């Protein structure tokens, strides 16, 4: 059972409960269907897909598409599969998520516990930046990265993701910290703790739940980004999504759908894992702050 469950004061009858379970299961089916399509077709030979019904279970079970997607499928001139790109994504997503979360936490801390004139306006500016469509920043961003000498590097990509992740991470932490008693910060000040000591000793230890939310959000978004990855780090440093795209989007070649689906599931495994493992803390984290407005 969920850790976040608390006793609900509402009682429901037997018929109502049956109805509730039916509705919940129907929705579970709805959510699972596309995944089912992907999974079923990833273990069929290609011929079975092109000639037949894609909802049908495989007549002949094969894991060759999975092996191919992972290690032998053609991504560029070399048949490397997705494997080498996995690490690229990891090298990009981990620093980006860490930096962005740390900055978000610090910003949230400043904006709630060290308020100054105009801080709300600054926060509004940061929050609005979440809404900028990525398509329009592509060209100017390329120019900036070029000027900074970060073009075509993982560092540049990390910078881009950090910049466009700050709005949300700041939002999450600000909402969370605003519910945190300011008296504690004052007590620590009188106790002689400085700005960073208070942050590290008082704020960080209680930030677990919101960190989970922030990390899940950033991890998913950054891992799944294609546009920036393709534009700023393609080639041997390309992230997983760019490789997956190259696997899937070949325009005039033969489309191996089974391999595509296997690749898609492989590419999504880290995020799926994050959701499943951290999912229970996720609701708790949301509960602890971000939806309290």
């Amino acid at each position: 059972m969920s850790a976040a469950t608390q006793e609900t004061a509402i009682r429901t009858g037997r018929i109502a409960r049956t109805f509730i379970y039916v509705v919940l299961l129907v929705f579970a089916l709805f959510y699972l269907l596309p995944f089912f399509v992907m999974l079923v077709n990833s273990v069929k030979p290609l011929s079975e897909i092109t000639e037949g019904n894609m909802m049908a279970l495989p007549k002949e079970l094969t894991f060759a598409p999975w092996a191919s997607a992972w290690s032998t499928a053609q991504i560029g001139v070399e048949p490397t599969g997705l494997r080498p790109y996995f690490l690229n994504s990891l090298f990009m997503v981990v620093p980006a998520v860490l930096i962005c979360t740390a900055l978000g936490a610090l910003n949230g801390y400043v904006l709630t516990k060290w308020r100054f004139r105009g801080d709300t306006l600054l926060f509004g500016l940061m929050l609005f930046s979440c809404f900028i469509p990525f398509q329009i920043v592509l060209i100017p961003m390329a120019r900036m990265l070029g000027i900074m000498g970060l073009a075509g590097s993982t560092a540049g990509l990390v910078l881009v993701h950090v910049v466009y992740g700050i709005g949300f991470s700041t939002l999450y932490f600000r909402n969370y910290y605003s519910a945190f008693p300011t008296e504690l910060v004052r007590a620590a000040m009188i106790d002689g703790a400085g700005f960073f000591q208070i942050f590290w000793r008082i704020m960080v230890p209680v930030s677990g739940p919101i960190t989970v939310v922030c990390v899940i959000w950033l991890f998913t978004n950054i891992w799944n980004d294609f546009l920036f990855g393709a534009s700023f780090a393609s080639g041997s440093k390309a992230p997983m999504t760019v490789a997956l795209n190259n696997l899937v989007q070949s325009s005039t070649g033969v489309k191996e759908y089974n391999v595509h689906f296997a690749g898609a599931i492989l590419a999504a495994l880290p995020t799926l894992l994050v959701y499943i493992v951290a999912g229970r803390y996720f609701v708790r984290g949301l509960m602890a702050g971000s939806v309290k407005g």
Partner: protein
Amino acid sequence: MGFLDISNVTKSYGNTEVLHHVDISVEEGEFLVLVGPSGCGKSTLLNMIAGLESITSGDVSIKGRVVNGVHPSKRNIAMVFQSYALYPNMTVGQNMTFGLEMHGVPKPERDKALADVAALLQITPLLDRKPGQLSGGQRQRVAMGRALVRNPDVFLFDEPLSNLDAKLRVDMRTEIKKLHEKLKTTIVYVTHDQIEAMTLSTRIAVMYNGYVQQLGTPKEIYDTPTNLFVAGFMGSPSMNLLPVEVAMIDGAPHAVTTDADGAPLHLRLHQQNLSEWAGRKIILGIRPEAITDPEGADRASSCIIPMTNRVSVTEPAGSDTFATMTLAGQDSIARMRADASVGPGEMFEFAINMEKAVAFDPETERRIVP
């Protein structure tokens, strides 16, 4: 120059001045209570002493050192917060020694200080627990312990008892008083509860609207309130404030008013200088305990006068019985002995101790000094 001096301190937010020219000097070992309704500026003043809020003008000095702009941790103060502000992620012991750690006190010294204070407050068994596992009273003790461990020049208390239930509050009040008597520390204590103010303090500053209305010992404040606000705020039930007219009868000033049935009533005034007010209106303040049954009257007083009036409600409170009547067209309260036999609707003969009555100028609301 005192131990803690607040001289001519003001506080403004933008163009709004919220604290006006406050002057208080606290001697070493004194227990100063800042009391007033919420929004009166008492917490702001405390935070300014602590260094949590900046001082717009004027000086705060501790032990002769002006501390304006000095970081809170460098003022050698300790503070106990209303919510206790215990760090939820640390144990009780860690909470209490955090300040020492931050000030670079070596661990053995910290441990010794912790052990002493824990013993003093009888919280030694709690040291390894987290604040979440403590009861309200225990948290309160830990919060005080955290302040004591630091051995500061000045203790600041920000409504420390308001989160406790009634009984615990009384117990802790006594405990704080005992601690103060034992340790002879200098304390500034903020509360909105005038009983806490009366019981704990050596001196009280009554604050309202950003002004210190009156600064004095509890007795001065109680007996000779400087204005209508202080008179009404201090004391429970609060002072009866009756609009009356002064008339000279037999060469002595009398207050002329009406009783419950609208019949005229003449009360001899004790203060002779009120003759100057003949024909004018004043506000006459009489504490409930100055209106009693004749048997309960203060025999030492030189000016007890009788008054017959109709009682509307009686409230037996165990130790006393309160009787409500109409005087000067408004509800007034008399405090009688517990066994005084009086019922609602009955006529009763009260004794008023006019020596304790105070007069206020209705225009300026200030007390007319005898």
